[in-house]
């Protein structure tokens, strides 16, 4: 009963309605559709069957709404509660009020086709309703309807209500919402039809009149007003209409939300926009009421009309509500459900992944095992999966993700697509390659200003690259002008202050960003960082905890909490948090480094070495900037040194120094190792180098003094390096050695001491 997925078409996914094409021989000429293209929301209308030749040539260019995927309204009585479950699976299309005869009303529909013939002299002949409906919106009932449709093809009349529905629809398309609402209201008064109510509510919703929309949907449907029949056909239709209504009236007219899933969904949306979250949740149900239905079987089914499954959208909305109401576990569940039901639901994916609701491993498995193939055609499923893979967390599976991206670029020619580029930028960022990442994000933002995943990366890179601080300032200013309502804007402002080490100011703007969007992770983390950098460890921990609660899939907040505890010398607490972070993501080199430090503090040096080594090898796998991990090399050296493995320690320090030559700690530690191996003079030289980089280092100063004392006490002047053999003799008799002037070597200066 499900329509098979469309065969992959190279151009646009729009295909002519198979049954309507033969009935009308004409196709609209492409040249005339220039304006319509600009209006069309759905796929282009080039191939759509044209109405039988409008009389005025220019008219057809105006019928922009023909390609609108929400098809024309009609008095379809389909959305009925008893069909609710199947509706849910069929998605919005089912609800979209378009001229489609339901079995019960088949006798009176399909007027429009002939109407345009009849009213050919009208200024604006309506396009064929068939043309307005997307063929994708065909539903299982269509085939049966066709029969009736064909039978009634000869019907010549076009109801005024129908034409007004057309006005309403065009008005919506052209953003003339008041117009749409005005006429829609009239229509509803006449017909009392559920579809008309839905469309009116939709119009209200689009204008932001959520309360009105909500009322319309939730309150009991009014009786349709009786209207004087004007035309010959109209009376009949009205009668029939009432007849149908009457059938329902027997059961009592309920509110629309109880009759149609789509209406319920819209009503819930209205409530969400009015911030009535509890009510909305009540309307939607705390959990998926169709769970049993939607379980394994539903997941495997493709969406009947190839749109987005309405269930999926509802699950997504439910997830959003749970998020709002801070029940994160439920929210996550709902989003997962939404995505399982319909893999195309990108917003559910986005909430899950970008909101870090799942750990890296979890999301990898979840996204990998979605029912792509069952819901989509082979090509589509492959594409969607690749697309999603590129957006996953880059810590693990970096090769697979890279591979996916390469395939997208090569096979699907999306190498320049911003979303694919964001994947690249994200990967570069994860590798600590700020400059490269910045180049990519600049490219993205040049094309899509304010791209919401590229912009945070862009900002972070600007913070990291010192010379870009002033551009950061400029960008923040621009953002404030363009989009003062966005969390990102204030995050950018805060980041600028953050770069200038003005923690207090930075914090103010970060919290402003958080107020605007409490799910904006970067601002939370930065907010906590501003405390951490200021040395306010307790506050920092509190702030990190909040973000840990909000972003449960991310190990970063936990790790940061651990780091703060470590700074407060609360090793045990720190370890707990690190372990928790490890459970989420065990392959972050930074985390492993911290764990190594913990082990080191616990004097478990063997383990520390293991951790450091693993951290280094993982970092190598990441192929990022090697010098980022110089500190880990240094730590490894410390662990080896304490264990007395001086040679290994020396090698680790040397490695660290080759990566970051200005590392004073590594230098002084190397000096210590050198001193321990007995080479005091070399150690002194190294201490000097260390102190020349960090003149205030108390450790190095003390160690240097120790070394100097050792030198003074143990090495007498005869042991100086570079002394000629004679001078190095312990009991040298100055009178048995020839005077220097007789030696070949240089003469002794006779000049003043200080200057020559």
């Amino acid at each position: 009963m499900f329509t098979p997925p469309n065969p992959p078409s190279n151009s646009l996914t729009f295909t002519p309605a198979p049954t309507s094409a033969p009935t009308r021989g004409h196709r609209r000429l492409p040249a005339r559709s220039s304006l319509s293209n600009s209006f069309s929301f759905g796929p282009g209308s080039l191939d759509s069957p044209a109405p039988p030749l409008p009389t005025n040539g220019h008219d057809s260019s105006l019928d922009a709404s023909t390609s609108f995927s929400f098809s024309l309204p009609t008095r379809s009585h389909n959305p009925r509660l008893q069909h609710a479950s199947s509706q849910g699976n069929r998605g919005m299309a089912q609800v979209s009020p378009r001229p489609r005869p339901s079995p019960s009303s088949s006798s009176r529909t399909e007027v429009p086709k002939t109407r345009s013939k009849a009213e050919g002299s009208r200024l604006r002949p309506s396009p064929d309703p068939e043309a307005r409906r997307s063929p994708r919106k065909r539903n299982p009932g269509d085939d049966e309807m066709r029969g009736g449709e064909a039978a009634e093809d000869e019907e010549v009349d076009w109801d005024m209500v129908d034409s007004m529905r057309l006005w309403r629809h065009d008005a919506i398309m052209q953003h003339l919402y008041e117009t749409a609402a005005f006429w829609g209201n009239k229509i509803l008064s006449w017909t009392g039809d559920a579809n008309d109510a839905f469309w009116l509510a939709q119009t209200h919703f689009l204008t932001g009149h959520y309360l009105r929309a909500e009322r319309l949907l939730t309150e009991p449907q009014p009786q349709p007003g009786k209207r004087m029949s004007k035309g010959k056909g109209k009376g009949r239709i009205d009668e029939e209409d009432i007849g149908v209504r009457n059938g329902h009236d027997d059961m009592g007219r309920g509110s629309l939300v109880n009759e149609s899933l789509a209406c319920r969904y819209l009503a819930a949306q209205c409530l969400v926009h009015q911030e009535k979250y509890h009510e909305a949740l009540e309307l939607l149900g705390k959990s998926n009421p169709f769970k049993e239905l939607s379980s394994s079987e539903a997941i495997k089914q493709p969406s009947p009309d190839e749109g987005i499954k309405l269930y999926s959208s509802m699950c997504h909305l439910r997830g959003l509500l749970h998020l709002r109401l801070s029940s994160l576990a439920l929210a996550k569940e709902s989003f997962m459900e939404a995505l399982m039901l319909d893999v195309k639901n990108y917003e559910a994916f986005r909430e899950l992944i970008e909101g870090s609701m799942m750990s890296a491993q979890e999301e990898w498995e979840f996204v990998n095992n979605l029912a792509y193939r069952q819901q989509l055609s082979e090509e589509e499923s492959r594409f969607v999966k690749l697309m999603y893979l590129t957006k996953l967390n880059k810590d693990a599976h970096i090769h697979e993700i890279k591979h996916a991206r390469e395939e997208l670029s090569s096979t699907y020619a999306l190498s320049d697509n911003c979303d694919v580029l964001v994947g690249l930028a994200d990967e570069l960022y994860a590798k600590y390659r700020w400059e490269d990442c910045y180049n990519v994000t600049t490219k993205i933002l040049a094309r899509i200003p304010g791209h919401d995943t590229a912009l945070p990366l862009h900002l972070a890179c600007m913070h990291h690259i010192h010379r870009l601080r002033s551009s950061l300032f400029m960008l923040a200013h621009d953002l404030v002008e363009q989009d003062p309502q966005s969390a990102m804007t204030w995050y950018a402002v805060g980041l600028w202050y953050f770069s200038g080490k003005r923690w207090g100011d930075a914090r103010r703007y970060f919290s402003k960003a958080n107020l605007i969007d409490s799910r904006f992770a970067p601002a939370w983390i930065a907010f906590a960082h501003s405390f951490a950098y200021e040395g306010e460890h307790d506050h920092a921990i509190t702030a990190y905890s909040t973000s840990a609660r909000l972003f449960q899939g991310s190990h970063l907040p936990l790790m940061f909490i651990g780091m703060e505890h470590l700074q407060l010398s609360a090793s045990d607490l720190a370890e707990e948090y690190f372990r928790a972070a490890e459970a989420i993501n065990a392959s972050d080199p930074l985390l492993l480094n911290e764990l190594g430090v913990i082990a080191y503090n616990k004097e478990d040096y063997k383990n520390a070495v293991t951790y450091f080594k693993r951290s280094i090898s993982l970092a190598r796998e990441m192929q990022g900037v090697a010098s980022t991990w110089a500190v880990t090399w240094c730590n490894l050296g410390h662990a080896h040194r304490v264990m007395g493995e001086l040679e290994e320690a020396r090698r680790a320090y040397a490695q660290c120094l080759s990566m970051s030559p200005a590392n004073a700690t590594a230098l002084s530690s190397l000096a210590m190792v050198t001193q321990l191996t007995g080479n005091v003079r070399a150690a002194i030289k190294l201490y000097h180098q260390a102190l020349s980089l960090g003149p205030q280092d108390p450790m190095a100063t003390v160690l240097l003094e120790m070394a100097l004392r050792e030198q003074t006490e143990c090495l007498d002047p005869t042991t100086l390096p570079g002394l000629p053999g004679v001078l190095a003799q312990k009991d040298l008799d100055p009178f048995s050695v020839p005077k220097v002037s007789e030696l070949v070597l240089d003469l002794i200066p006779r000049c003043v001491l200080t200057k020559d």
Partner: protein
Amino acid sequence: MATHTARVQIAHDIRRTVRELRDRGLLVSAKWASELLSSLAEDVRSAPHLPFSPPLQPHHMPTTSASPGPGPRPSIGEFLPSPGPGAFGAVAGPSRSMTSHGIEMEEEEDVLEEDEFQLARGYFDMKEFDRVVHTLQNAKGKRARFLRVYSAYLSADRKAQESLPHFLDTKEERLFLYPAITPLLDETASWSDDPYISYLRGILHMRIDQRHAAVECLVKSVTERPYNYSAWSQLAQLVNSADMFIELKEMLPSSVMLSFFAITVMLDLHTATDLVMNMIKELLEIFPHSVHLQAQRALVYYHMREFEAAERAFDEVRRLDPFRMEDVDIYSNMLYVMDRRAKLATLAHEYAEIDRNRAEVCCLIGNYYSSRNDHIKAITYFKRALLLNREYLPAWTLMGHEFVETKNSHAAIEAYRKAIDVNAKDYRAWYGLGQAYELLDMPMYAIEYYNQATSLRPYDCRMWSALAQVYENLQRLPDAIKSHVRALLGADRQQTPSILRKLADLHTTLSDGAPNADAVEYHKKLLALNTGTGGITEDIELADSYLAVAEWESTRGPATASAGGEVVGGGGGVGVVGGDMALAIRYLEKVAGMNCIQRDRAEDLLRELRLREATSAV
């Protein structure tokens, strides 16, 4: 020593190198190489070995264009490993072609990028380094690549210097420079087949203190392009001991430039001798007009402390090239040491006329002010020299000296440290550091720095004396004695007596003031030295020594037979077993006859001795 054709070949090689250097913005080297070229004999330079103005030829005919004239071609065979038209290419590098002017172009990319490259060169000449980097972003040619990285380095260097919060701060400079240099090294890692890139990598390694890698790169560079003098002089800076120099010499192919290098290194290591003089003479045969060599000769004289000869040589250099600024700073140092203030003043004024914005000239002026005891002004000029060239070693050391003069030990320490950063072989800076720390009462540090200075100048009395002094202050007398003994080796006539006296005193202190054989030994040396040379020292200063010897002789007088006395007596050179009473009495009488504080003690002893003599006689 070298045949005519070989010299012609040298001329050709230099000429080519000059052009390559100039293309790459290595101006100092280019200047040096051009000087060298012009110092060749006229006939060598004009010899038709190379086509200076061949007929116009297209780029893609490298083999034919290399030999336009039939004349001298075959003679190259004497010098080149594989003669023939192809040989030229083998020496000159891969895939050469000629421009329309008969100048070889290096690579195809270089030809293609000529316009961009010239644009970048223009920016480079205007010191707009970042702009060069930007212009050559995607350049592929070797020249352009080099210029880009070099400009990036210069830009980073300039920014690092501008970032300094304080003039003497070296830490900030490093912290700024290091992160900028590492990516450049990474970037050039795969291009090391280019000798100029190798040179640049050498410099970069040097800047981040990776000496081994630096030496490796520079050696590679000079092997392929020997006439890049900057590479040689950087390499010379890296040589920190004679052993290392010998080692390096083995690695390098022997060539004319190796001799130049050897001269520089030996001057640097303070081991300049007649050997160096001979090398200079040999080189002068090939490069008869080389002012550089003349100046080197002056430097060698200076290092050999033959100031008169050095002065003559310097004057000769000035006559040959009155506007030459190099080495004038060293000349001024020498004049300062010789205390030729008038000449120093003249020199300062004359060079200030020419160009006071040269580090060397600023240094000269600084020396001039210092000689007039105007230390503040001197410091100003040294600073100015350093602003012009932060790596200019002499100015750092001299500034350190001036800071010591103005009792600003901390500033002095910073200046010396920087000098050592630039060149760790500068014993004066080490010595200055030692002095400064001694003033700050941090003897252990002083010992360390004197140690360094001493290692560099093992026969220099001043270093050893200073070291001994610190040990003495630390009450480490055996070490002090050891140091003094070594100081004695390098001491001249003025210094020796005081060292001897010090040694004697130290030995006395070691034995708690009791007369002691070692001490007496040194006293005797002291007296012997005095009589031997006709008395430099006043007798009155030797009273102590006379007294000590007399006391020693007198105390062991009666106990002549004791074994200990014999040993010491044998060394004393008196040749008498037992106490030399006569000597003792003679010395005591001498002291008693002097107007000094020891007189009473001497008289007492004399009396006692006479008494003892009388009793023993009885």
